Structures are given as structure tokens and as C-alpha cells.
């Protein structure tokens, strides 16, 4: 993307003035280098989102933005119900509530290193991953309905984890307002045996070492210390969310005309928040959010079981669980007034700053953890929400590195076995059912996650707390 198409407000803030159907400006947070690396389609999508009814303040793109479906991935937009605002299935995506959960192990790198290969093998055996995998449970219809209402709390009640885990999950593990009746029988059938599975593609389970601490006071609150080992789980609502996205995208396309919504692209399919369809989608999407949190809770339990076999004294505690494909009703200040808004974050992480009442008490003084995934070979980061960030993009920040090469280009450049061997040479053990899948996810196919988080920090979206180095990656 040519930065000259934008008005440069600072080194990391770029504005697209409203034109055509845009109701609000587009605002990109990124360094010039990251802007130059973005696809032109990102700007087109930012502008299209800015033209949706009821959008408030601006259509935002995070530093890791890339081309998505309707909304850019790395897109943030808030809508006012009172102003005829919309909810968009495309703005949440097919992988509803995909997110990251990070667990502290209390183990040092010196303790883990001698058993690392055994740990990698055991995690690969224990945590179901890849195409066609099934989880440890086959849910009845009533169990699935309960899960969709109760999220991670359901998993804890079934023995997967501890009640204390819920304290450090967004929404305390339960998204209110879920409506299982708004979820199709097909979506429910698709999920019946997928609870506790990682999935495939860019989903992963990583054992990581905290290699650098940037903000010692926040790291202390997060109980992160250099040289200690953590585990991160990246996955979402599995088949349930995929089918809900499919079902409602179709319904919203069919009904758009009836609501007087003109769509510049079909992928922007949306419905007024106060319409019957909009409310049904909200109920179904929240059910999928609960499914995602329940799923990561079950996987965390499987990880704990695996660690206890190899490191009997290990005590895995939950740092945080945060989703990055959501729409949430939140209160934000707009023009000096507090407003209730429906904030879409597509490939963007909520990043609430210190003092926010939605944060767990243990993190309220320092801001929420923002978990940013890298790729198999590069670093992941823990950031913290900031007070200033609340006014930048409704308390939102980056979610990951973002792809720089297509899957085909990745398989053209790299072979899966060579990637596995090269990463082993760098001390990173890969376990995956598919070598082609590994090649498609080669680290070189991703942007520089360090540049992305630096830009997020410079833009005031979030603050760097710690850098994590991968030791083991189980890839679906």
C-alpha cells in the first residue's frame, strides 16, 4: 500500500479521510514499513467498513492488518444500536472467538530442557489436532446446549480444570446472552465430537520460554519471569463457530435488501443490531464464544495432565485467555459521553487498560494481558492494555504476526520436512500430523511479529511486557 494515499498523523497513525459512502475516517495504526507491506485491499476494506450504518468514530486497522473477508483481519469497528448500527457475521469471521490462552508452568527452562522431546511427544499424543480429529467427549444435545450457555464454567464443572481458572478468562469464562436456540442443528452436529480439539491451519499449542521482560512491574503482576516456561494454546470455536458463520452470512445476505443495507461487497453481510436476525446472530455468536472458551479450557486440562506425567511437581496456572474474533457490547467514551457500542474485533485483541472494571482484580492495576501469537519459529509476545489505548481504538490491539505469503507460495518455497529440521536446528521441536501443513505455516510466510508489536506500542495501543521463545510447537 502506498502511504501517500493516507494522511500521516504520526509515525504510527495514518488517516484515510471520508469519501464516497464513508461515514467516518479510516485509521491505520502501523509503521510506514508495515503500511507499505499491506495489501491495497486492506484500505478498500477499511473504507467499506467505514460506510456501514451506525459506525462510530472510525474504521480501524491494527499493525498486523491484512486482507480479510469484508472486514480486514486486524480490523476494529464499533456500532451504535441507537444510530441504526449493524452487526456483521463477516466482521467476526468463520472462526468465532478464536483466541489465545497462556498457562504458567512454574518450571524453569533448565528443568524443561532435558525432557523437552518427551514433552513434545506426549503433548502431540494427548491433545487432538489436525483434520478429522475428535476430542475426549461426545456431547449429547443437552450437554452441548449447556456448554453454549456456560462456556468454560461448563468445562470446569465437568472436571476439566479449576474454578480459579475462570477468574482470568475474559468474561470470567462465560459470555452472557448466548442463545443455543439460534444455533442451527447442523452447527450443533458439527461440534458434537470436536470439544477439546486444536484444529489445523494457524492453530497451535506451544511450549515457550520467557526470554525477555520489558515492563518488570507488569510482568510481576502477571507472574512472568525470564527463564520460566509457559504454554500457549491458539484455537477457537471449531465446527460450531464455522457453521454459525456460514449460516448467518447467508441469512444476512438474503435480508440485507429488506433492511435497506447496500453492501459494497457481499462479504460485509450484516444486519441491524435491533433486527430479529441481528439479535439471533448475537445469540448464536455468543454461544460460539462460550464454545471456544470451553474448548480452550478442555485443552488446558489435557496439557496439565501431560505435564503432570513428565513434571509431577508442575503447577500450571492460567495467565489469561483472550479472544480475537468477536463482537462485544461494551461501554466507551465518545465525544465526552459514555455510549454502549457493539465492538467488532476481527483479528484484533481486546486490550483494556488499568482500572477497567471488566478486568480480573489481579490485573486491574496494570491492564489486561494481550496475548500475541507469532509463528512456529518466531517469538510470541505478552502485551498489556493501556489507559491511553482505550481512546485509540476502543481498547484494542494486535493479535499476531499476520501472513505475508500465501499458502501456495509457502509450499513452493519450503518443504515441510526441511522446515521441521531447520527449526530443530534452532532448538524448536515441531510435532504435526501433516508436513504439507507445516510448510504452509512456515515461519517465513509470516510478517515480523517484533515489528508488529513495536508499532502497537508506539501507537499507544498496548505496552510490551514480555517476549516468548518457542520450544515446542504442536501444529494441527
Amino acid at each position: 500500500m502506498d502511504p501517500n494515499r493516507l494522511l500521516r498523523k504520526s509515525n504510527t497513525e495514518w488517516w484515510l479521510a471520508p469519501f464516497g459512502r464513508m461515514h467516518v475516517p479510516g485509521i491505520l495504526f502501523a509503521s510506514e514499513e508495515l503500511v507499505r507491506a499491506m495489501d491495497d485491499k486492506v484500505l478498500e476494506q477499511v473504507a467499506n467498513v467505514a460506510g456501514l450504518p451506525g459506525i462510530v468514530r472510525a474504521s480501524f486497522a491494527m499493525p498486523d492488518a491484512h486482507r480479510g473477508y469484508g472486514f480486514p483481519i486486524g480490523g476494529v469497528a464499533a456500532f451504535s444500536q441507537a444510530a441504526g448500527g449493524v452487526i456483521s457475521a463477516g466482521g467476526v469471521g468463520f472462526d468465532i472467538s478464536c483466541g489465545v490462552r497462556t498457562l504458567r508452568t512454574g518450571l524453569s527452562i533448565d528443568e524443561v530442557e532435558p525432557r523437552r522431546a518427551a514433552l513434545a511427544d506426549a503433548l502431540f499424543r494427548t491433545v487432538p489436532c489436525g483434520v478429522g480429529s475428535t476430542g475426549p467427549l461426545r456431547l449429547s444435545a443437552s450437554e452441548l446446549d449447556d456448554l453454549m450457555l456456560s462456556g468454560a464454567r461448563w468445562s470446569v464443572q465437568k472436571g476439566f480444570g479449576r474454578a480459579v481458572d475462570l477468574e482470568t478468562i475474559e468474561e470470567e469464562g462465560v459470555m452472557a446472552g448466548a442463545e443455543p436456540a439460534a444455533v442451527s442443528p447442523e452447527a450443533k452436529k458439527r461440534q458434537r465430537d470436536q470439544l477439546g480439539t486444536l484444529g489445523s491451519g494457524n492453530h497451535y499449542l506451544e511450549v515457550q520460554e520467557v526470554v525477555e521482560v520489558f515492563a518488570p512491574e507488569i510482568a510481576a503482576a502477571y507472574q512472568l519471569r525470564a527463564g520460566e516456561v509457559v504454554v500457549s494454546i491458539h484455537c477457537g470455536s471449531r465446527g460450531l463457530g464455522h457453521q454459525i458463520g456460514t449460516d448467518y452470512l447467508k441469512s444476512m445476505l438474503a435480508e440485507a435488501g429488506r433492511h435497506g443495507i447496500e453492501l459494497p461487497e457481499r462479504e460485509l453481510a450484516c444486519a441491524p443490531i435491533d433486527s430479529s436476525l441481528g439479535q439471533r446472530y448475537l445469540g448464536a455468536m455468543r454461544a460460539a464464544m462460550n464454545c471456544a472458551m470451553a474448548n480452550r479450557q478442555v485443552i488446558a486440562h489435557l496439557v496439565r495432565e501431560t505435564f503432570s506425567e513428565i513434571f509431577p511437581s508442575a503447577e500450571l496456572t492460567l495467565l489469561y485467555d483472550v479472544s480475537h474474533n468477536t463482537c462485544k457490547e461494551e461501554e466507551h467514551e465518545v465525544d465526552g459521553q459514555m455510549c454502549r457500542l457493539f465492538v467488532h474485533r476481527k483479528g484484533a485483541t481486546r486490550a483494556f487498560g488499568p482500572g477497567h472494571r471488566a478486568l480480573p482484580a489481579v490485573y486491574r492495576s496494570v491492564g489486561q494481558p494481550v496475548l500475541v501469537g507469532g509463528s512456529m519459529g518466531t517469538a510470541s509476545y505478552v502485551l498489556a492494555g493501556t489507559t491511553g489505548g482505550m481512546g485509540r481504538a476502543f481498547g484494542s490491539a494486535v493479535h499476531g504476526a499476520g501472513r505475508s505469503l500465501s499458502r501456495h507460495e509457502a509450499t513452493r518455497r519450503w518443504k515441510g520436512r526441511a522446515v521441521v529440521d531447520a527449526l530443530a536446528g534452532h532448538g524448536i521441536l515441531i510435532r504435526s500430523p501433516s508436513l504439507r501443513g507445516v510448510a504452509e505455516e512456515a515461519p517465513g510466510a509470516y510478517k515480523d511479529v517484533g515489528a508488529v508489536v513495536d508499532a502497537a506500542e508506539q501507537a499507544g495501543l498496548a505496552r510490551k511486557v514480555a517476549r516468548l521463545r518457542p520450544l515446542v510447537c504442536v501444529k494441527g
Partner: protein
Amino acid sequence: MRASLHMLPVRRHASGSAGTYPTKAKDMQHTLPRWEHFDHPSDIGVRGLGRSRDEAFAQAAQALTAVMTDPARVLARENVRVACQAPDDEMLLVEWLNAVIYEMATRKMIFGRFTVVCQGMHLDGEMAGERIDVTRHQPAVEVKAATVSCLRVACDGAGVWTAECVVDV
């Protein structure tokens, strides 16, 4: 103009041979039906080409399988039938591919052969495949959904039908 980038084929298969990409209409007819993939920054595009809409739709499904594995590795042990309908050709393609994705996800199967018969905007499809065998199929990635991105169903002046869209993986 970068918008045309996604139109370039990146992986293709023609019945009988996978030779060079034909550019003349006459050559196109000789290598039909066939499927291709086209590039997308984070996901992948599937394209079916045929002498009829039915053939193009069946080939698009073959391209869908090829996102996960080599269709030649899939044995035709079991047949599954689906039916769907839509208001127009393009949404019918999305419906069809999503029906295939749904059957794969719920049956834990992968399909290697597809037959499509459309009557107006109603589609009857039959697919043959087997349960996923991770060792033999080495499935690269799970397909979440067929999308309306880069969605196109069209017949050119030479009678070649194209059915294509991006699938989310």
C-alpha cells in the same frame, strides 16, 4: 493493478495430464474438465472449469479436496448424496461447497470424486470417498467454509464454465 493477482492459477490439474496452462479456447476445451487453485493472502481460492455448470461445480469440489490432500489418494469406498438450492448460480456454488465441507466435518470423511446435476437453482450432488486416514492422506488443513470472496460462476464465449471462490482454512 494488483486486483487481478488472485486470478492467476497457482496449482492445477487437468484430466489426463497436468500440462501447461492452455490459453486458447480450443486448447481449453481439450483439457476440460479440470480444477485449479488461485492465490489469496491468507487462505486459498478453488476453481473448477468444465463444459457445463455441473462439470465446473464438480471440479470446484475436487479443488476443495486438493486444499487438504491429493485427490488421487482418496479411495471411493462410500457414496454420500447432498441436495441444495440457492437464488443464483454463485450462491449455489457456495451452498454446494459448504454442503461438501459439512459432510467432511461430520462424517470425518474426505471425498475424491464428485458428480453434480443441477436443475435450475436446485443441485443434486454425489460424492465418493472414505474416512480420513491421517497417515495416508496427510491432510494439510481443515476447510472451515466456502466464502463469497472472489465468488464467480460464468460461462465464456467458448462455452467454458468457471466456478470459483475463496475457502477459509
